[in-house]
């Protein structure tokens, strides 16, 4: 009954999970002096492991699986890296490596070796966050995913209030309360599912899921909880102050990666756990909230005076694009959901937004360091002072708007074609409107950055290697634009076993 069996490359999945935990415990036990060395070594090793897993998935053409402790589900817990998880793991490690290079400047331990709060907390929580993300991408057990979500919340919340001012503490507390409410709803759903099926394993649930009352209540509760954690439209109030208040390196990781984990869980619940086919009304409702997110939060982004708050609102808007995927994929003619254009478009939107948003937040951090403030109105002279950063910001903006040749263009075009194919005209209209709104708020920033500097403006120098880290992220976001315009079969690997 269970398709699981430990495949040859399986032990690498355990490494991907345990490496950041061992690094975090090492920094905690050895103190800050070794923190940066340990953190950078772990980041590089983790990148190598993620790439190795991706290659193994591509080469073997099937999902890399590992049964923890050798116990088969439903008794034991299985880790599985299918095509989608491999792409997400590589994305996560690349972004974290460049954030690591960027953060070396602002979170370096003092030369006299004394232990200071900010760098110690940042490096330990960054590694904790990474192990949580890898667990979310790999775990095949609903309760392990709950523990991973809690791990994610516990790593992300202290990062928001790292500078300790009163409004960031308030934003962190509100974020924690929303996240806890979401987690408890998700846990309630898992409890009901165990009561109904006696298993927590996604693959076995896929085969036994019935479209009865208990399952729909359970999945409804879980998805509502995850919507709160993914900051979908009515439940997005906590995100902008939290992501804007965090230091630049932390808000880049929060907006690019942490917000995506709950969405991926909704995707997994929707296409792997729920009995197929799901009612079209449910998909339309999610897409409706996504569209509301896009329109409402893009307009809010336009009205922001501070750069980081604007980028945070644009995060909520771009996450709204992801929720458009559900009706597009369900309505598509393709026999398997992951063969449809909408699926690849959605995943590409997630990945290109991650790189673009990380680059934008890091660029905003550098601009704020150079100018001393991040008021959009008078960013004049930023282009002269930190030209590479403003260029990176513009390139990332390109991908956000969906202009060729950036990755955002390919993903939004795929979503558009899927919308046209499935005759969801209102989704097509929303995608176009979202693109235009994104263009306005990006050009507003780039325009004011290119303006003439005020007389006597003195700017702090910013080390080049940090600017290059931001530029690499922006270039990756643009390079994604050269992918072919049809469904990527890599994303379909390992999903064969799930009709």
């Amino acid at each position, binding site marked *: 009954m269970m398709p699981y069996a430990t495949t040859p490359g399986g032990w690498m999945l355990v490494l991907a999970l345990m490496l950041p935990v061992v690094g975090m415990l090492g920094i905690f036990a050895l103190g800050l002096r070794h923190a940066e060395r340990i953190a950078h070594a772990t980041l590089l090793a983790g990148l190598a492991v993620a790439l190795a897993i991706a290659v193994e998935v591509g080469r073997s053409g099937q999902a890399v699986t590992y049964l923890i402790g050798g116990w088969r589900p439903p*008794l034991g817990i299985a880790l599985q890296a299918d095509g989608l998880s491999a792409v997400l793991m590589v994305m996560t490690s690349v972004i974290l490596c460049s954030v690591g290079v960027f953060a070396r400047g602002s979170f370096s331990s003092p030369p006299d070796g004394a232990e200071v709060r900010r760098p110690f907390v940042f490096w330990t929580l960054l590694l904790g966050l990474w192990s949580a993300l890898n667990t979310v991408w790999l775990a095949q057990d609903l*309760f392990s995913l*709950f*523990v991973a979500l*809690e791990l994610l*919340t*516990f790593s992300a*919340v*202290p990062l928001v*209030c790292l*500078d*300790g*001012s*009163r*409004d960031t*503490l*308030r934003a*962190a*507390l509100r974020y*924690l*309360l929303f996240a*806890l*409410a979401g*987690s*408890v709803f998700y*846990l*309630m759903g898992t*409890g*009901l599912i*165990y*009561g109904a099926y*006696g298993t927590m394993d996604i693959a076995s649930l896929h085969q036994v899921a019935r479209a009865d009352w208990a399952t729909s209540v359970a999945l409804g509760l879980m998805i509502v909880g995850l919507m709160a954690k993914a900051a979908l439209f009515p439940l997005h109030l906590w995100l902008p102050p939290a992501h804007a208040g965090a230091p630049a390196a932390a808000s880049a990781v929060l907006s690019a990666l942490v917000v995506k984990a709950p969405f991926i869980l909704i995707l997994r619940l929707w296409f792997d756990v729920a009995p197929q086919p799901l009612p079209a009304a449910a998909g339309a409702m999610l897409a409706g909230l996504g569209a509301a997110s896009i329109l409402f939060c893009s307009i809010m982004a336009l009205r922001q005076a501070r750069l980081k708050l604007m980028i945070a609102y644009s995060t909520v808007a771009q996450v709204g694009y992801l929720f458009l995927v559900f009706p597009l994929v369900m309505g598509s003619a393709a026999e398997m959901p992951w063969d449809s254009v909408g699926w690849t478009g959605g995943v590409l939107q997630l990945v290109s937004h991650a790189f673009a948003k990380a680059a934008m937040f890091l660029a905003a951090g550098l601009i704020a360091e150079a100018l001393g403030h991040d008021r959009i109105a008078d960013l004049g002279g930023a282009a002269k002072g930190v030209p590479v950063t403003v260029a990176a910001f513009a390139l990332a903006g390109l991908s956000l708007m969906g202009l060729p040749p950036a990755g955002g263009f390919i993903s939004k075009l795929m979503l558009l074609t899927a919308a046209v194919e499935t005759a969801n005209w209102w989704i097509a209209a929303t995608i176009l409107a979202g693109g235009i709104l994104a263009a306005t708020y990006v050009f507003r920033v780039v325009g004011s950055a290119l303006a003439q500097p005020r007389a006597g403006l003195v700017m702090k120098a910013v080390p080049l290697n940090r600017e290059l880290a931001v530029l690499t992220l922006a270039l990756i976001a643009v390079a994604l634009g050269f992918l072919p315009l049809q469904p990527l079969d890599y994303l379909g690997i390992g999903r064969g076993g799930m009709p």
Partner: protein
Amino acid sequence: MTPATLYGLCAAALVAIGLFGLILHPSPLRKVISFNLVGSGTFLFFGVAARRGAVAGFLGDPVPQAMVITGIVVAFAATALAVALLLRMLESGAPTVDGPPEQPDDLSP
């Protein structure tokens, strides 16, 4: 109406009461208490599933019981973090981080 079903209904009521407090109470400390209430109700659902799954000579299905123990630990850690965050927010009257926080109005001496 077995005891398990009765406690299941009690769990549903606990969740409803806790959710009422979680949404309505403006004070963060009361929200944390309400969150714990909803958590207790949720764990009772696992308890009901465990009690109903009592076969093969066990008093109850050990798997959901193990999950409840893990869940209680995580819920306690969340409460401790939320309360510490709440106290620090009320203490940090001063926006500056470095100096010791001067006492705002509603903190006992």
